[in-house]
């Protein structure tokens, strides 16, 4: 009988907890709000959100959904509480538009600040910061300070390259950019070459690749710029060691620049708080928020004249590749198929 009593008590307790939950989500009608659906972990954008609330009095609600965010907004349809999508990678931004869950925004403030290459021509999404996909090189074992993406397939690196899953969206975009530069057949050759150079089967995240360099598993790895700053400036002494083991080389395509990607914003099709959402979008390209964002996330600010995080600046000057990212987005499916075709992750 003991089970039964505690069961009833537990049920009551659970119902009460849920009641609180339901109450809190329904009682928000009086004040000004903005509902953000984000594929970025909210902790990363929290400093900017807090500042926005302080300035405007608009309360920001967030939900972090790494995969399936667009599907959820589409399923929620007319009654979706979502106002704004925050996401990274051109693939995700383009997918949101293709899914029909966004609406165009016409804003001079946004168009003035954001270069045309980093926003949708029709205004469905806007990039607010950039990151480069670069080469981490062992301080101890790699002496060169220049490299091309093409060189990753050079047999001289045999058994010395580390990278996360080829199917990860960061790599898919990089491979798509390679297809844009060289065509599908050459890109396939290249990918095969990189595969042949791998020290181990692709796994882990970008930081694990730096860790593997420290451990001597490989000499060079592919990773995003901001991770290096997060490792070096974070609180974890272990990760600091990983970051200290590597130099960052900004690679380029032959005859091109460094592959960059965006983190960006999109207004949802049925945004119930549209005015607040647009206000937030414009706020995101203000000097103040661009500065906070650059500092907190170690991304390259989209606005010129904003100070780049010192760790990121120490990599040297970024010369971004010239192929518009919207073009790269169209080649993602092909890139994903190539990864399977050459058995990159096997």
């Amino acid at each position, binding site marked *: 009988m003991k089970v039964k009593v505690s069961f009833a008590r*537990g*049920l009551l*307790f*659970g*119902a009460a*907890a*849920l009641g*609180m*939950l*339901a109450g809190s*989500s329904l009682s928000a009608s009086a004040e000004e709000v903005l*509902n953000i659906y984000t594929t970025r972990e909210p*902790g*990363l954008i929290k400093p900017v959100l807090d500042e926005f609330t302080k300035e405007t009095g608009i309360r920001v*609600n*967030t*939900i972090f*959904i*790494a*995969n*399936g965010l667009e*599907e*959820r907004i589409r*399923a*929620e*349809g007319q*009654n*979706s*509480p979502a106002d704004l999508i925050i996401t990274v990678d051109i*693939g995700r931004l383009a*997918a949101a538009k*293709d899914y029909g869950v966004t609406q165009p925004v016409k804003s001079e403030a946004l168009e003035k600040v954001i270069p045309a290459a980093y926003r949708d021509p029709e205004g469905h999404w806007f990039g607010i910061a950039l990151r480069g996909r670069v080469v981490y090189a062992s301080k101890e074992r790699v002496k060169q300070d220049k490299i091309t993406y093409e060189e990753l397939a050079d047999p001289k690196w045999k058994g010395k390259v580390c990278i996360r899953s080829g*199917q990860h*969206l960061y790599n898919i975009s990089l491979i798509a950019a390679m297809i844009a530069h060289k065509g599908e057949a050459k890109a396939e050759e290249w990918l095969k070459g990189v595969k042949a150079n791998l020290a*181990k*089967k692709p796994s*882990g*995240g*970008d*930081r*694990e690749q730096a*860790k*593997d360099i*420290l*451990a*001597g*598993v490989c000499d060079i790895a592919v990773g995003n710029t901001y*991770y290096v700053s*997060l490792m070096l400036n*974070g609180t*974890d002494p272990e990760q600091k060691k990983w970051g200290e083991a590597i130099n960052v080389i900004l690679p380029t395509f032959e005859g091109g620049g460094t592959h960059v990607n965006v983190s960006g914003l999109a207004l949802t099709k049925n945004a119930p708080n549209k005015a607040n959402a647009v206000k937030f979008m414009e706020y995101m390209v203000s000097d103040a928020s661009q500065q906070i964002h650059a500092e907190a996330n170690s991304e390259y600010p989209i606005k010129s004249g904003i100070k780049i995080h010192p760790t990121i600046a120490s990599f040297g000057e970024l010369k971004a590749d010239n192929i518009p990212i919207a073009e790269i987005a169209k080649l993602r*499916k092909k*890139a*994903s*198929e190539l990864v*399977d*075709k050459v*058995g990159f*992750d*096997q």
Partner: protein
Amino acid sequence: MAAIALVVLLPLAALIEIAAEGDTEIWPHLIANVLPASTFDTLALLAGIGVVAGSMGITAAWLVTAHRFPGRSILVWLLPLPLAVPTYITAYIYVEVFDSAGLVQMVLRGLMGWKSRGDYWFPEIRSLPGCILVMSAVLYPYIYIAARAMFLTQSASMLEVARTLGASRIKLFRIIALPLARPALAVGVSLALLEALNDIGASEYLGVRTLTVSVYNTWLNRGSLPGAAQIACVMLAFVIGLILIERYGRRDRRYAASPKRHRTVHPVPLFGIRGWIATLLCAVPVLLGFIIPTTFLLRETLRGSLFDQFDAEFLAHFMTTIGLSVVATSTVLVLAVVLVSAARLSKNSLTKGSLFIAGLGYALPGTVLALGLMTPLVGIDNLIGTVWRSLTGERIGLLLMGAAGGIVIAYVIRFLSIATGSLSAGLDRVSPSLEDAARTLGASRREMVWAIQIPLMRPALASAALLIFVDCIKELPATLLLRPLNTETLSTLVYTYASRGRFEDGSLAALVIVLVGLLPVIQLVRSAEARPRVAESAGSFESGSPA
């Protein structure tokens, strides 16, 4: 009855509908480049877990039941504990501890004077064997619990006769105990394998490209949700096969149920080195599945002074987790009682079919379930909204998706089969003569359910409740996709930290998940160990004899 099955069918129907939306253009590519390797990886993973987790679980269960050896009484308590540790958390921890720059290899290098990874050999944790190890370490309790209950209820006489005839200990185990436990084993193994098959976090992180990972790649990188749904449907067909095997196994097991009470096995002491080997064999699974993960989490919590995270917000997430799990668990129990009683009292094919369909929720990966649920949930929400507006003129937005209703429904669908499996196996062992007698005495159906079936099912109910509660606390993918704004559970909190690349910062939340899960697991052990003869422990699908 059929309505409950209908709810489970909602996401399945949605899945098939999504699959039908797309054409079959992805298949040539999949067949040429993806499926051979990922099918191999999937099968190898499942086979590996079957063997490793199976042997860990059975060996330990046999040793603690049939023998006495140093530490046995403590190990009986410790062996089921990995049940409380989520698989994805274990995967992260194992990479932290055993990877090239992890604790173990760093210490080894310091000791041996090795400079780099090339100087020595060490097994790679981010690999298929690594994944098998990680998953086996936390999934073996499903098998252990089933096998232990089975061994406990086995008649001692058969074993003793064999002993008298001079059978060696090993032979005893091989010839008598193992064949008798085989059905329970099938149940435990298939539960563990379904968990492994539906996992995405651990296998992806450890670099194993299972079919579930292919579903994700097709969906996210090739932008083909229909294609992904098609793969998911094929997998589901495969899983239904597995479930049928499991059911077949359970049907087989019925012969093992003897209505008479019998003595349990008398444990034979193992002395000297033999005893210590037994200790080792039982301690290793506990070490791998519980001690290593919890020690790591505790160390990280202390090292990062993470107790500071314990604030009002954390408490709110904690309450959300408990609240959702309690409500979902109670709902599951009520529905399962209805389903199982109905299936027993009216043996027509509709009720039987409903019972089977209710079991399918467990066969769907959490994300697939959640994606399939969204559209039907919003449909219901819109219906409610329209009615409400016509009555009051107010808009209420999305009720189920906007609050936590969606998550509860997902949990219920996903875990219903644990309860129906446990309850129906329990009731199956009760002689129908009891109900026949009641019927002769003029009892109504309702009276039979309340006065006979529910009391008889109570032990099975309690253990199902505990298992489901633990599973709800650990659930991640469906929670992630269906939760309302500003809402986190402990699992999503850990995930949030992990996706920032700061998994260690989630150690406190992960530790609390384990601790909350421990209480039910300990309760489970207590009820199983206190009344070994009735042995109504959880995964075992045992129930008391009608004494």
